[in-house]
């Protein structure tokens, strides 16, 4: 008799998605939202939560990777949560996106010229100028941040903190 066969996972190309949720500003909402991902074993790549213009509500911006049918299901299940007012996939639309990163480098005083050149090129600002370290702040598209960080990696990257992507729809359209 044949050995039990384990079904292969359905193959669909994963893509990066940016979701924006408008939710009640209440305890537990974040857990309910993240469980919709977790029950599928889906990872959230980045997550930003902050109060909305109206303090009773919060904005959640999530980036995650997955195939489109699964993401469509996830969005519908997010929208179904009582605490979620709406859930929108901004992937591929013209919404404005940005992200901030803080980068700490081990860098002696006399060896900083190249680092500072890179920083200047990327519009990064030095926010802490210590004797043995530098902290840089950079913002822009997530792709730009990725490239910036890769350029600095050989120069003694100590710490990296990224805010996660935030997104806002253009014009009068709802985010």
């Amino acid at each position, binding site marked *: *008799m*044949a050995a*039990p*066969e384990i*079904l292969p996972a359905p193959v669909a190309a994963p893509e990066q998605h940016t979701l924006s949720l408008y*939710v*009640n500003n209440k*305890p*537990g909402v974040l*857990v*309910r939202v993240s*469980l919709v991902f977790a*029950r599928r074993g889906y990872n959230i790549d980045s997550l930003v939560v902050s109060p909305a213009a109206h303090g009773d509500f919060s904005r959640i911006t999530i980036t995650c990777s997955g195939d489109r*049918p699964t993401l*469509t*299901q996830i969005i*519908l*299940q997010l*929208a*179904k*949560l*009582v*605490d*979620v*007012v*709406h859930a929108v996939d901004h992937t591929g639309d013209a919404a404005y996106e940005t992200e901030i990163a803080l980068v700490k480098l081990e860098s002696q005083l006399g060896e900083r010229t190249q680092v500072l050149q890179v920083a200047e090129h990327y519009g990064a600002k030095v926010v802490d100028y210590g004797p043995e370290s530098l902290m840089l702040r950079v913002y822009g598209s997530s792709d730009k941040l990725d490239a910036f960080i890769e350029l600095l990696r050989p120069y003694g990257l100590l710490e990296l903190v990224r805010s996660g992507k935030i997104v806002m729809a253009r014009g009068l359209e709802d985010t």
Partner: protein
Amino acid sequence: MSDVKVPTGAEKIVQCLEREGVEIIFGLSGGAAIPIFDALVGSKIKLILVRHEQGAMHMADGYARATGRPGVALVTSGPGATNTVTGLLTSHMDSAPVVVICGQQVTSVLGKDAFQEADVTGISYPIVKHSYLLKHGGDIPRVMREAFHIASTGRPGPVLVDVPKDVSSGPCTAPFTDEVDLPGYTVPGRGDPEAIAEAARLLSESKRPILYVGQGAVISDAGKAITSLAEKLRAPVVNTLLGKGAVDETHPLNLGMLGMHGTAYANLATQDCDLILGIGARWDDRVTSDPAHFCVGAKKIHVDIDPSEFNKVIQCDLSICGDARLVIEDLVPLVDMLDTEPWLKQVERWRKKYPLKVQKQGGLHAQYVQSRFDHLSEGRPILTVDVGQHQMWAAQFCRTRSNRHWLTSGGAGTMGYGWPAAIGAKFARPDEEVWAIVGDGGFQMTLAELATAAVHDLNVKVLIINNNYLGMVRQWQELFYDNRLSGVDLEGNPDFVKLAEAYGVKGMRIKRVADVDRKLREALDYRDGPLVVVAEVVKEGNVFPMIPSGGPSSAMLIEPPRTQLEKPRGST
């Protein structure tokens, strides 16, 4: 004003329950819930003390499914609350409106591992429609109103309200409210007229239509409209396990249940249709088995109140969001009679060629007992059915004639559901005959509720199909695992008649084919309190037809197979 007594939070909760029209609460007390139990003294709400919180949950669920009104359970914190988890899942999977109120430790110790503290709100998240941790007495009227609104509207489901003891003991001056302000919550009603017109157009082109009816049709009471639609189109109807009863299963157009253990003719017709109209059914894996081979080439239309069900399992040609009854009522006037004569003839040929089989020789067979039960009871009783082989036989042989007369745990497949659900249904519908049909395995998970039925002298009955096995798993082991039986032999089963008598409940035993009709008649006529009927059936009966899970319906086994089968590849 000073002589007006300010109610406690617990008293306010009970007043809110009364305002919601709650007549009965199924509960088990405990330290953190004492203030709420105290507030129930003198209330017109009837408190039914259960023997285990799972029993309270299934009773509330049975009450809810038998009436359409929310069932209410009241338990204490910690283990009391965690014992509701199986019941929450059961109600969540099958969209039953249940409101669960849990006592909780005082707010000042939350998060500090206090005695009988469990984060039940957190535990509940994946298995409720919504849940609340009621931290402020002033929120009581709003939260209680929202809880009942959310539980009972749209796609119903369980809502949990966790009430710390200081909140239930403290004063509550907040006024009652009838309004709900839930910006994230909408209740679909009528469907989009254009989509309904498109459905009518697709139907008009169909030669071999089928209506596929699920729990949503039961919940929205769409049966009458669906029957009109079926008669007007002259289209056959199949129902899911939970859809039983929306359309009378003795109606000539009804082919009974489809899916893994559905009738052969229901499955053959479904597989061969050129249009399938799903009404409040979610294309579950028990139905679709292998989605890639389900109704290939057929137009697929899906009517559902929950848009997250659209295209989840099966990609449909048309999705209509709305209340099943309202959508079908709008659809009926737009359709004309179809030329389905050849199709109906084909369906009838299948029905004649592959009838459900009942064995009368070689001992007492469960199928025989249940088919006689159906015949003698004429489908009058509300049936609450547990989970396993007996459930599938009941689904096949006990044809459900009317809405809300078939209650079973479908999505969750919760063993132990049947008996307490019967008690809940009987409290809800005291004038109806209520029977649980259970297996020996499932019954033992919640049989302590025999005491609950006995105390209230409730004329509720249970038919135990006793094969001394966990029969469905034994069947899989026989068919797919070389008959290597593992963990299925229920040796040590009690004598269920003596067990009933120990609770002061009448017990009856059926052992011989010749006794079946006489004893079932006697049991059906019994009016003096609860009754336990044990049918000692052959140990190794199997449920057929069977579509091995994940297989195409062409792999349907109508008869026992002669050769060893490959292990199924689909869901469990």
